[in-house]
């Protein structure tokens, strides 16, 4: 049986090697799309960033001036600062909710799969849709949160949640946690379930308390999963746009302009396409650095299992 199999295999293999270019035909459509709509745009972004590039009219080579301008652009720097602030806060909030949820739905028991599914539901709707839904819920006159607080007697009059920075920021954080926590929960759950049950059992028999087991067993063993969930959350937050554009249009006193929002404004509102490209390259560099940090984090996880 195996003998005949290997006999038919060897001419096959020879034939395949001879028609080595045939494989390229199969991957050609995918390569064409990736080159046309990804590789070329990336190179083109770099090229554009070295130009003064208005929407209409001629383009002019200006070397690194766009990059110099970037470092003196107070609005860009504050967009960076706001994005960093948002990323830190929202990541902490997501983990603070998703980790307990993952532990909550870890054990197989009645209705657990129902809980998992319901918690996950907001993940599959769009961020734009979720933003729209919550901007209505948070509306001062026609929404749900403010009027409900008033009806319950917790507030004298319905608070305008999106009017001040702090309350608008809090509303957006709650919306994003509602939308994303299910996703992070499932990622963390895969890590939790990969921990061998006899290990926890052994620790329990050795007299390790619940917190000790979590701190010295669960957390170290989940290092890789946590790193992954962390990276997904951080990169996603750095690229945030929809929620600020839809919910607060940049926020009270323009204080909620994220980096992507600022690039959008420069490129498609002010039509400084060259400067927008330079900002994009900066964003790209930030994310590539983060990817390298990610690889490093994952590697560290492997070294110390």
């Amino acid at each position, binding site marked *: 049986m195996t003998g005949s199999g290997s006999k038919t*295999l060897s001419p*096959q293999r020879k034939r*395949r*090697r001879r028609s*080595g*270019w045939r*494989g390229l035909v199969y*991957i050609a459509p*995918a390569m064409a*799309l*990736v080159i*046309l*709509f*990804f590789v070329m745009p990336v190179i*083109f*972004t770099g090229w554009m960033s070295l130009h003064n590039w208005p929407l209409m009219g001629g383009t002019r080579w200006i070397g690194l001036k766009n990059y110099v301008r970037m470092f003196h652009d107070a609005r860009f720097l504050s967009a960076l600062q706001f994005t960093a602030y948002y990323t830190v806060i929202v990541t902490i909030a997501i983990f603070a909710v998703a980790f307990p*949820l993952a532990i*909550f739905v870890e054990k197989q028991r009645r209705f657990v799969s129902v809980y998992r599914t*319901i*918690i*996950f*539901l*907001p993940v*599959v*709707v*769009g*961020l*734009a*849709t979720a933003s*729209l*839904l919550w*901007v209505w*819920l948070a*509306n001062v*006159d*026609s*929404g*749900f949160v403010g*009027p409900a607080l008033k*009806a319950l007697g917790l507030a004298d009059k319905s608070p305008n949640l999106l009017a001040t920075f702090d309350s608008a920021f809090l509303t957006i954080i709650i919306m994003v946690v*509602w939308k994303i926590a*299910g*996703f992070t929960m*499932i990622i963390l759950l*895969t890590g939790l379930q990969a921990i061998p049950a006899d290990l926890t059992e052994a620790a329990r028999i050795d007299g390790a308390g619940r917190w000790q087991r979590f701190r010295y067993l669960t957390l170290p063993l989940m290092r890789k999963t946590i790193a*992954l969930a962390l990276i997904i959350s951080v990169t996603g937050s750095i690229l945030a*746009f*929809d929620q600020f554009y839809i919910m607060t249009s940049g926020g009270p006193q323009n204080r909620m302009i994220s980096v992507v929002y600022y690039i*959008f404004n420069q*490129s*498609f509102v002010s039509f400084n*396409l060259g400067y*927008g*490209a330079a900002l*994009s390259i900066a*964003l*790209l560099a930030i*994310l*590539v650095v983060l*990817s390298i940090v990610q690889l490093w984090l994952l590697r560290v996880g492997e070294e110390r299992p």
Partner: protein
Amino acid sequence: MTTAKVSSSKQRRARKAFRANGAYHAAGIAICLFFLAPFVITFLASFRHGTEARLPPLPPWPTNGLSIDSYLSLDTFGAGIWQHTINSLLVSLATVVLTVAVSLLAGYGFSRYRFPLKNVLFVLIIATLMIPFQSILTPLFIILAKLGLNNSLLGLTLVYVTLQLPFSVFMMRNAFDAVPKEIEEAARIDGARDLRLLVRVLLPLVLPGIATVAIFAFLNAWNEFLAALILLSSNEKYTLPVLMMAVRAGRLGAVNWGAVQAGVAVMTVPCLIVFLLLQRYYMRGLMAGAVK
């Protein structure tokens, strides 16, 4: 005496377990309420009378009888809700079909053939995951214009397909890797070649992978906002999320919240249905992404 003691301690333990169980499910229900409530409130509120649309949803259900006023007022925005729903459906379904076709071929090529630069090209496709598409929107806009595909649903679809490729090619290559080579060899001996072999023999075997790729392509295309906002410029081409910006902006400073509720319902329901029907394949894709 001793038996009574044992049974009472047993009872106590059972009662404790019962109470813990009750507390667990009470917490479960409270958590589910938080995650479900926004959907439920919006769906219910969207069926209130037009006169109620401005009022807070307290209670959220219609008190003056059911009405589709909100959906009718949504229809007065842009080129009508049907047009925009069809736009969104066209883009999403075309994205699904093209993504499946392209990644099926590429997955097969990467799994079964050897050719020059194979690994380099595979890494190139996967590496595009590292680069956020938000940073290349300006050149995309210009390249599409050069190709005569600006402000077209086809252009938007091609961009969406490209964005889906890293994940999809990866999924499909793994799907083909899992198919034993013997099946292919047997089919080859029976005279099936190349595309016929792929479609007739292998396609049914990688269907789960295709389902996963298709669900992600559909949901991402249906939900995407920023690229559609930038690449579509004329009113009648807008997909649903872009249309909703006009609704959100309102008219004469007044937002029609009934239309917002109806729009959220229209955008949400297809996602929830697709997810609930095909949850198994969705989760498979998520796990595959998480492991790698």
